[in-house]
């Protein structure tokens, strides 16, 4: 009896070792293989479904909580209603269909023309490395130089980011790569110039492409807006996904604006080799220079006209006077709680914000380094876009380019002067 138990245990142990070894091989192979022209098959029966890093079911709950559907299609949830749908709202304004007066439309339109859409999340797992998605969620960067908004820095911890990545990348297996010919980066670059890739894509860190003009035709311009900087592709896609995507983009992501160039397997391998292996020469961003406080008087009218009403008011407003729900920066949204911040008037700005404990606090309270909180948030946005250390204060404006130094100087001067009316 004891011998039979012992034999069963040994067999189970052997089976576990075999399974473990197979799983390890599957995980480790992605970055160790030369670029292969035979790796181009779109997902078929030869698929590789990696074990997700996080809990996809929890990730789904978080995607709902963080309201990813306010900006993105392909979240697994219906698009947000118009009042909360950033890009559907912008689209309607640009197309003249938004239900407001013609005068209001004319006033809104110039502000949203460069913020028309966000990339869809359809088939994310067939395109992006799950690990990369986790890091991107934690520290979003400007992937699309021709698109004004960026992914907002949400209030996420690593565990939550991992679960969201697991959910978003689930169900889209990576095409299996097979051994074959290695691509030629030099030929890849020549091909990219010939095909006009730079008409839509930036590729920072490599010598400039000849075809680098943004197309004027509107459909192409919209495609260009969503086209990522190829500098990040080596980390985002990994080799297998890149080969498959280049071979037939729409077979991977049905709604992509990337055209199918009918490349041969060899051409795909060459382009992928250039994108993946070309050494990058990235110039470090110039450090942000904080300008001194102005000695001249800065009125509320000036700082409101140039900064608050133009930039802050859109997400931090007073529902009673402006309609709508007051924006995510007032009544909450994107996973943020209701902060009660309103940039509707001088008095409402002085009324501060509601902290985690539900207490009202000033937007101008001094942080340990003596910087008022509001000003620190404006500086922090510069840190975020330069991928400097993540600041404890969330950068503002959320998901938009940082304010120029002159505008921050204006805000800082107004605060230093006692926030005059």
């Amino acid at each position: 009896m004891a011998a039979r138990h012992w034999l069963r245990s040994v067999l189970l142990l052997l089976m576990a070792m075999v399974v473990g070894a197979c799983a390890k091989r599957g995980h480790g192979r992605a970055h160790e293989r030369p670029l292969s022209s035979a790796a181009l098959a779109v997902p078929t029966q030869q698929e590789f479904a990696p074990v997700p890093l996080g809990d996809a079911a929890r990730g789904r709950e978080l995607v709902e909580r963080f309201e990813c559907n306010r900006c993105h299609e392909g979240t697994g949830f219906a698009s947000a209603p118009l009042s909360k749908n950033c890009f559907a709202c912008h689209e309607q304004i640009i197309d003249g269909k938004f239900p407001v007066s013609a005068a209001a439309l004319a006033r809104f339109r110039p502000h949203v023309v460069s913020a028309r859409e966000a990339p869809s999340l359809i088939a994310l797992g067939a395109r992006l490395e799950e690990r990369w998605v986790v890091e991107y969620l934690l520290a979003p960067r400007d992937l699309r130089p021709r698109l004004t908004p960026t992914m907002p820095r949400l209030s996420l911890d690593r565990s939550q980011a991992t679960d969201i990545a697991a959910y978003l990348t689930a169900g889209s297996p990576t095409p299996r790569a097979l051994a074959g010919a290695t691509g030629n980066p030099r030929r890849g670059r020549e091909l990219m110039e010939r095909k006009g890739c730079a008409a839509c894509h930036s590729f920072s860190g490599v010598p400039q492409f000849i075809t680098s003009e943004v197309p004027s035709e509107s459909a192409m311009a919209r495609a260009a807006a969503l086209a990522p900087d190829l500098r990040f592709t080596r980390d985002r896609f990994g080799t297998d996904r890149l080969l498959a995507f280049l071979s037939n983009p729409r077979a991977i992501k049905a709604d992509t604006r990337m055209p199918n160039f009918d490349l041969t397997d060899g051409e795909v391998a060459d382009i992928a080799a250039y994108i993946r292996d070309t050494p990058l020469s990235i110039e470090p961003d110039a450090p942000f220079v904080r300008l001194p406080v102005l000695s001249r008087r800065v009125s509320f009218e000036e700082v409101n006209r140039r900064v608050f009403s133009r930039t802050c008011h859109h997400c931090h407003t007073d529902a009673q006077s402006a309609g709508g729900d007051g924006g995510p920066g007032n009544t909450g949204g994107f996973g943020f709680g209701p902060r009660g911040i309103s940039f509707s008037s001088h008095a409402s700005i002085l009324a501060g914000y509601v902290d985690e404990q539900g207490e009202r606090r000033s937007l101008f309270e001094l942080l340990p380094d003596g910087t008022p909180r509001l000003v620190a948030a404006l500086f922090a946005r510069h840190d975020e876009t330069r991928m400097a250390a993540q600041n404890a204060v969330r950068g503002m404006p959320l998901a938009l380019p940082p304010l120029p130094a002159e505008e921050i100087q204006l805000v800082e001067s107004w605060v230093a002067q006692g926030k005059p009316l």
Partner: protein
Amino acid sequence: MTISKRGIQMVAVSMSVVSLLTAASSLACGGDWYPEVQIDPRIRGVAEAEKALAKGNSVAAAGSVVRMIPQIERLRPKTDPLLIRAERVLAVAIARESGRLALEQEVPADVLGHWLGKTKLDQDKNLAWSVDALRRELAAKKDDPGLMTELGEALSKLDGGQDEARTILESLAARDLIGSAQGYKALAELRLQKGDDAGQKLAMKRCESMASTSKVCASSAPRAS
């Protein structure tokens, strides 16, 4: 000669048809037809009153509200945002004018009534109404530092209201949440009443740096005795 009923009907129908056909080309009135849109003038009026108040023109702001909505004292609005805003303007204006609205030249006497605040009794009545209105608004909009500042201002003018006013305004000042220069001015006066000269100077300095004009931080109008 008799005209048959049928004949009258025919003539009436014909005239209607002719008038309809000719109307299509009748452009003598400018050609196009415009709907007559009724816009409540009080929307703009209240917004202007708010601006006047913010600029320190309390009497003008109050006059505008009383002229537009003479019955405002009795309304006690709960849901209409326009009336709530108008009531707030009037309440704050009364507090800033210490209960006396010098509107004799602008508003008919029968409309003005006790708003004029010629006697101490009327001034007290006006200030009590102001405090009551601001308390009601604050009950509906809890934890609004702007409204709390204004309630502190109004209480600081009301007999027996100073202690509560001091508690409210000191609490806001400690958190840098006083919502107006006038709030700092009221705090400065309250501190002076307690003999806190240094505190008075600090509050007055904040008033002066925040105010759009120097008259905002000048001494309050004396009350009738």
